């Protein structure tokens, strides 16, 4: 079986001619591409490939054509002579083409890098042109923004209700906002002198040392409660946060602090705690008083029966009267406990607080005069009527006034009533010039049976009962005191908001207008 060879020869001759033709056309196109952008490395690469491909096509195709011609013309010997050269050149051109082709990946990466660099340079160039053209405007705009920002932050600094301070590492106060100056009781000159140390305003050096240590270790300190003192040595509680200033352009080794005055909040918390505690004690006292009250009534009843059956002035009668006396004392204590726990009945009637106070003062005035203690009163006539159990409220004010008298050897007790119009409250203040209440006693003064008086001089129920009565009237009883300067008790009671008729002393009806 055999096949003709001429199809191979025809394809060989025609193919070789086409290879030469298209390889040169490729060179021409690649040249045109290169001419579009002579710096484009990809077009240079394609031109190189086309050149070596053309060289390969020529070497190979010419070899094939020459071979066919020489063999056809029966010059096989001549072809034998030419053949090794043709084959060798052919091989070399392959290697050239292959070598150049292999570089495409690298060439493309270089091209991408060049494009990126070119784009970056173009953008920078555009920015430079823009900045050159608008430099003056840009500077002006930036200056405006900076001024605006500076004003904004200065305003925050100045109007902040909390203390904002910048402190050097050694504690020197560098900057302090107006709230801080006010909080510490300083003047602007104190800060500008640069001689004030922040740690001097801490009640204990331990707080400052703790802050410094925490700042060194963590770089910041958050919401730490401290006790600070003002320039006049009065103290207040503060909540401090701070951090180390480590931004470029800031003062190195300095700290910034924010201090919030939490004295009021702490006082409120203390009051709530106190109220909770007294409510618990009241519940306990009410339970005990209720259980004791009945047996005491029975003891008292039987004692009185026995007294009737005994002869007057007999020994038994005397003994029974002692039992009766002490049982009555116990009953009084129990009734006081019930008042404190607000279990006793309250008969409220419309009254004027100033009238109530006048009655109490008239009772105690004689005692005060005997002991050369003055009474000053300052009543606000605008106070509307209030609904109170007059007897109980008299007991409260009597307690407060008598306590004030007992707290001092001489001086004046000031009694003031005032109308708190926005709060719709009547405010009664009893202020003495006595020894004041020690801070450690402040949280216990309303506790039942707590007294600082010598044994036998007081039961310790006066303030407890007053507390219970005032609370029962929907009011508040507060105390402020400074050791050595006296104490002030403040009672607030809600006023009635409607027009109510109050019976006058002479039996006529008088009208009073509410404060609202």
């Amino acid at each position, binding site marked *: *079986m*055999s*096949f*003709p*060879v*001429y*199809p*191979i*020869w025809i*394809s*060989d001759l*025609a*193919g*070789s001619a*086409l*290879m030469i033709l*298209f*390889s040169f*056309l*490729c060179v021409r*196109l*690649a040249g*045109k*591409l290169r001419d*579009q*952008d002579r710096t484009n490395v990809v077009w240079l690469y*394609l031109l190189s490939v*086309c050149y070596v*491909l053309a060289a390969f*096509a020529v070497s190979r195709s010419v070899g094939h054509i020459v071979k066919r011609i020489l*063999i*056809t013309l*029966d010059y*096989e010997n001549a072809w034998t002579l030419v053949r*090794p050269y043709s*084959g*060798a050149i*052919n*091989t*070399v051109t*392959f*290697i050239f*083409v*292959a*070598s150049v*082709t*292999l570089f*495409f*990946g690298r060439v*493309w990466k270089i091209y991408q890098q060049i494009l990126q660099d070119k784009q970056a340079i173009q953008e920078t160039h555009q920015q430079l042109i823009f900045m050159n053209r608008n430099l003056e405007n840009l500077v002006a705009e930036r200056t405006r923004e900076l001024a605006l920002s500076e004003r904004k932050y200065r305003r925050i600094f100045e109007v902040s209700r909390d203390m904002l301070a910048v402190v050097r590492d050694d504690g020197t106060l560098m900057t302090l906002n107006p709230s801080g100056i006010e909080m510490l009781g300083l003047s602007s000159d104190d800060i500008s002198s640069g001689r004030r140390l922040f740690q001097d305003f801490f009640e204990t050096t331990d707080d400052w040392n703790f802050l410094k240590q925490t700042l060194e270790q963590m770089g910041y300190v958050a919401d730490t409660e401290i006790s600070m003192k003002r320039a006049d040595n009065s103290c207040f509680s503060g909540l401090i946060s701070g951090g180390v200033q480590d931004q470029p352009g800031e003062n190195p080794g300095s700290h910034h602090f924010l201090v919030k005055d939490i004295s009021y909040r702490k006082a409120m918390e203390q009051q709530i705690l106190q109220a909770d505690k007294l409510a618990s004690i009241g519940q306990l006292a009410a339970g005990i008083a209720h259980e004791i009250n009945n047996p005491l009534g029975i003891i008292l009843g039987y004692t009185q029966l026995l007294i009737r059956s005994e002869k007057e002035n007999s020994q038994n009668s005397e003994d029974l009267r002692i039992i009766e006396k002490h049982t009555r004392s116990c009953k009084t204590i129990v009734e006081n406990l019930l008042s404190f726990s607000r279990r006793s009945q309250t008969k409220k009637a419309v009254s004027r607080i100033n009238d109530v106070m006048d009655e109490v003062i008239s009772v105690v005035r004689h005692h005060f005069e005997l002991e050369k203690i003055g009474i000053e009163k300052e009543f606000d006539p605008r106070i509307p009527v209030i609904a109170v159990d007059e007897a109980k409220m008299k007991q409260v004010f009597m307690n407060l006034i008598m306590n004030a008298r007992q707290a001092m050897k001489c001086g004046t007790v000031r009694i003031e009533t005032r109308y708190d119009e926005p709060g719709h409250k009547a405010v009664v203040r009893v202020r003495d010039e006595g020894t004041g209440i020690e801070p450690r006693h402040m949280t216990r003064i309303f506790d039942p049976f707590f007294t600082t008086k010598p044994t036998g001089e007081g039961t310790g129920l006066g303030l407890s009962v007053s507390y219970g009565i005032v609370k029962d009237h929907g009011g508040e009883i507060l105390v402020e005191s400074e050791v050595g300067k006296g104490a002030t008790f403040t009672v607030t009671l809600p006023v009635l908001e409607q027009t109510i008729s109050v019976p006058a002393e002479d039996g006529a009806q008088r009208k009073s207008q509410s404060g609202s």
Partner: protein
Amino acid sequence: MKERAIPIMKHFWRRAPGPLAVPIISLGYLLGFAQAAMATQGHGSPEGLYAHQIAHILFAFSLGVLIYWLREHSLIENSGWRFVQYGAFFLLLWNLDAVLAHHLDDRSDLFQLIDGGSWNARVHFVDNSTKVVLLYYFAKLDHLFCVPGIVFLYAGLRRLLQQVQQSS
């Protein structure tokens, strides 16, 4: 590397007895002790074929790498580069075809060429070698691969040029 090599060379140069010492000693050794060294390797006729075949394989490999990068960089989404990829693929096939054809060339045990010099030349099959010889016959028509390859390359370049001209 270069920075390190230069001082080392200078160091040796300074330590040597003189600039001419090495060539003189080498020449003296060659002249004084030379024997039949058989220094160059002989290269027989198969080496030319092997070198040619290796060149084909290298060319095929480089075209495969080109196709890989064209696809890796997603260049084939562009019609111009897609034609270039087709061209590379056909040229790759041509290289493999050429390797096969060269391998089977002059295999007188498989076929014989009758009237080789004339247009009536025929390939005569030796018994039981029909498939291989058919394969060889087809492989000899290698322009069926390389011509489309270069035509695709031309088409790709033309498309790229058009795109560049349009964009500019």
